């Protein structure tokens, strides 16, 4: 019986499993997807023929190496694909696979739960043809499709430029790239960004390539609305030159990534406010250990750092698990990982400065904007509830949830949580951290009520 569980078979989970297997353990590796790789190195279904170079570009060698590492591990791990971990209690995971529930006991669990796009709703964002940036990338990478014939890319961060480049390269028409971060902000961060030489150079390459191919680029723009009746017709923005209407039939939008922290929350890991990310992150030390015995975190699911950091952090956390099990340690290797992680952390700080989360966009959201797309709750309803509640002690997001049902829909606040907190804090004129964070609830994703073998978790 295995007693180390790894949740997520992306870059962090793969490198963690590798260290554990080398130490003689046989971890359970669980992933919600049918295969390993995570979102960044997602493997297309069988029968797809594009090369790794086409799929992963500059990261092809890393993708190939990670896939090869996982393939070599398959006989030595208990791999459970297509499996959702929907709850976690002390030393016990609750799973669901194809309608069947199960339980997996563990002594140590490493949560490598990954990330999703951070979005700021704007009028029209629920129209068919609007996807997250990550979603538009999955469509191309895993399905060979563009989300439309004329796609506008909106938001900020490295992913914005990467996906626009990938679309143009694959033959899609890129209507425009609209970066809400002004050029001057990015320029100010340039000296510090140079620490991440390779990553920085790739970013410059994508931007230069798009410019050379005459893709319209607008920086420091304010998005106003996505227009259309039943389908996207245009994206309306404001720049220093006034309002502009960009004709398109699809929009991909995103403002960086946010960690999927639901399982860490259900495991009772305490959270702390991160001012740079403008959100709450689960607490862990530099080894990935949390204050909860047996619970470890690695990769973008703990803090956004990208795939390279995830590989390092996954391996580092595996060593922390081996230490917890009193198994022999390779101190030279651990020192190498720690040094590499410290180098990346400095670059991450610079990236956060170059592409700050534009909280002002969330705060300025028109009242009629659908804030919660699960249940069509508007920003105005949120503001009204905040005002009504202002006389009660400690107004915070969970009270707002009770009043408006914000965060109570099927996605459990994954999308609306951060912008709702910004709106609440602005309406109450209080610091963002004082409105708190939405408490997690099991199941972390919808599961059928009539699941076979479902028992009440203790």
């Amino acid at each position: 019986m295995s007693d180390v569980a790894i949740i997520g078979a992306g870059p962090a989970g793969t490198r963690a499993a590798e260290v554990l297997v080398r130490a003689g353990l046989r971890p359970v590796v669980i992933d919600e997807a049918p295969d390993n790789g995570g979102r960044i190195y997602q493997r297309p279904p069988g029968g797809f023929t594009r090369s790794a170079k086409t799929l992963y570009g500059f990261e092809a060698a890393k993708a190939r190496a990670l896939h090869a590492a996982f393939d070599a591990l398959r006989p030595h791990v208990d791999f459970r694909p297509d499996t959702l971990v929907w709850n976690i209690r002390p030393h016990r995971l609750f799973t669901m696979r194809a309608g069947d529930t199960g339980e997996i006991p563990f002594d140590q669990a490493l949560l490598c739960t990954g990330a999703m796009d951070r979005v700021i709703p704007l009028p029209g964002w629920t129209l068919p043809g609007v996807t997250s940036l990550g979603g538009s990338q999955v469509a191309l990478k895993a399905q060979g499709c563009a989300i439309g014939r004329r796609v506008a890319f909106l938001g900020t961060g490295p992913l914005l430029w990467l996906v626009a480049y990938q679309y143009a390269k694959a033959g899609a028409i890129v209507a425009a790239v609209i970066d809400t971060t002004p050029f001057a902000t990015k320029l100010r961060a340039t000296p510090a960004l140079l620490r991440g030489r390779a990553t920085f150079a790739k970013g410059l390459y994508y931007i230069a390539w798009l410019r050379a191919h005459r893709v319209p680029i607008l920086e420091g723009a304010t998005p106003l609305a996505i227009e259309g009746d039943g389908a996207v017709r245009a994206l309306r923005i404001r720049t220093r030159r006034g309002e502009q209407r960009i004709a398109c039939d699809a929009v991909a939008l995103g403002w960086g990534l946010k960690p999927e922290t639901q399982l860490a929350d259900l495991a009772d890991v305490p959270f702390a406010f991160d001012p740079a990310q403008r959100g709450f992150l689960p607490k862990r030390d530099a080894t990935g250990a949390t204050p909860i015995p047996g619970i470890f975190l690695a990769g973008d699911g703990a803090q956004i750092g990208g795939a390279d950091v995830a590989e390092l952090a996954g391996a580092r956390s595996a060593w922390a698990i081996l230490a917890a099990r009193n198994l022999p340690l390779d101190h030279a290797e651990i020192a190498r990982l720690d040094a590499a992680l410290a180098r990346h952390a400095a670059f991450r700080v610079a990236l956060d400065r170059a592409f700050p989360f534009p909280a002002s966009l969330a705060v300025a959201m028109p009242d009629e904007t659908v804030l919660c797309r699960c249940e069509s709750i508007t920003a105005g309803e949120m503001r009204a509830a905040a005002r009504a509640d202002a006389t009660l002690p400690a107004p915070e997001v969970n009270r707002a949830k009770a009043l408006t049902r914000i965060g109570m829909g099927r996605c459990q606040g994954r999308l609306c949580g951060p912008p709702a907190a910004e709106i609440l804090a602005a309406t109450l004129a209080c610091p963002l951290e004082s409105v708190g964070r939405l408490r997690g609830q099991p199941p972390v994703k919808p599961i059928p009520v009539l699941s076979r073998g479902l028992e009440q978790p203790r």
Partner: protein
Amino acid sequence: MRLQRLAETARPAIAFTLDGQPATALAGDTLLTAILANADHVRRSEFDGGNRAGFCWMGACQDCWVNVEGAGRQRACTTYLQPDMRIVRP
């Protein structure tokens, strides 16, 4: 919204039905891809009646659930199309 197939178009075709009408897609398509290659939306919001076509494509937003006869509610972006599936859009 119509998806545009840019690559991997040599895969075998798969027949299915969408709201009772015959449709085809390609082996390896998710339900989301299969539907949006044939239609302009995936579901109707039960709260505002507006058409929706998913959003995150990675199993997070929960805005692409459809009904598959005999298999119940399925999340379209993480479920692969099987031959002769009968998909009904909510």
